[in-house]
């Protein structure tokens, strides 16, 4: 049996982590490499680096950062944010990224998913979807970090992307993100049950019970969170011990 994965997400801007952390033993809490190493040491199963840098020029710092991370940590990591072409992907893979997460650019140009899958394999392509439950009871795809609504249903886009070669779905519920009220269990379960690839639940994790629910009720393969880990509200070793008590298989 595969272990359920716990994935901290680090927001990167101009090569630095944006959200603060309260890791007292880190000299520089803004240093993504030190933070990544600390998470790996604590038992994180994987890491996601999300680059929110605005300009192309400053994005060059991302490849340098990826290079340094790859030399430091011994667990897989995904890099996402603003990736638009196979050239972007090649540069990040050459620097040492294991997987690439695509979102808006893949929606605008679905061929990007198949191009990356052909170049580097499906296991390399993580399709990130930001989705919101609307009044009509359907989950819709949002783009550009949640600023732009589309008329496409989350489920339909996820299935199309998997057919094109996406190897994992990183599903963020905008209704839940930042609320700490729990993950979106229904849409997570729907995707996980219907699609032949792993689904990473994201958005809303606030308590250890929420993570247990994501795996049991939501059938997620992995759960991703940022601030609850960064601010030490939930420690990864405590969370994993709790999940194990609840009968969830985790890597200790």
């Amino acid at each position, binding site marked *: 049996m*595969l272990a359920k994965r716990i994935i901290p997400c680090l927001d990167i801007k101009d090569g630095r982590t944006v959200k603060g952390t309260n890791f007292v033993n880190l000299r520089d809490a803004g240093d993504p490499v030190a933070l990544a190493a600390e998470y790996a040491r604590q038992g994180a199963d994987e890491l996601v680096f999300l680059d929110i840098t605005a300009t192309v020029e400053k994005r060059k710092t991302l490849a340098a950062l990826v290079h340094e991370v790859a030399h430091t940590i011994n667990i897989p990591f995904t890099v996402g944010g603003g990736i638009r072409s196979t050239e972007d992907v090649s540069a990040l893979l*050459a620097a040492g990224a294991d997987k690439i997460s695509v979102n808006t650019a893949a929606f605008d140009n679905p061929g990007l998913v198949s191009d990356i899958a052909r170049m580097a394999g499906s296991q390399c392509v993580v399709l990130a979807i930001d989705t919101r439950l609307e009044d009509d009871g359907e989950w819709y795809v949002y783009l550009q970090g949640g600023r732009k609504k589309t008329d496409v249903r989350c489920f339909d886009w996820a299935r199309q992307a998997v057919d094109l070669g996406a190897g994992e779905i990183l599903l963020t519920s905008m209704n839940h993100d930042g609320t700490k009220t729990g993950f979106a269990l229904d849409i997570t379960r729907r995707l996980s049950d219907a699609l032949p690839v*792993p689904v990473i639940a994201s958005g809303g994790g606030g308590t250890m019970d929420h993570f247990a629910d994501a795996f049991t009720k939501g059938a997620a393969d992995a759960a991703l969170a940022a601030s609850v880990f960064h601010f030490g509200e939930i420690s990864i070793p405590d969370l994993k011990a709790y999940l194990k008590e609840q009968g969830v298989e985790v890597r200790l």
Partner: protein
Amino acid sequence: MKLAIIKYNAGNIRSVLNALERLGAEAEVTDEPEALRRADKVIFPGVGEASTAMASLRQNGLDGVLRSLTQPVLGICVGMQLLCAHSEENDTEALGIVPVRVRRFLPADALLKVPQVGWNRLFNLRSPLFAGIDEGSYVYNVHSYYAEDSPYTIAHCEYGLTYAAAVHKDNFYGVQFHTEKSAATGDRIIQNFLQL
């Protein structure tokens, strides 16, 4: 110690090199037959599709070089699969060093996703490659094809069925999982290989 990594179109050469650097070992990435023969240990990485990888080896004459190596060789992921006899991935005749067939996971269980992506446990460890590694330790996997269990198996893994997570024949070792991405367990396995 001279350590060589076989240079061909494998996708994880960089991450294997990074892992070795983290552990303080230096390696030369090379497709020169003489450099490979001279090395004390050879690592044969692999990410990608079996027939393409095999074609790349043949094109550079590395298939014959690989078969002729007498020092310890470690195949990783597709590298391990290519040490075997045949892969169902595009009906590929592999190197035939370890007489085992590589098959595709057929998910009879709808909950079983293919590829297997994530951390799974090792059992029945029986090789110096796993010195100091506990039964049930987790390693990181990404694969759709697996080597069948055989007398050459030195570690088992369960994913819908029991398969060979690692194989050994003579001086050739292979691991299906990504030891270079398997946290402390993976680092220890690499160190063990360096000490064989």
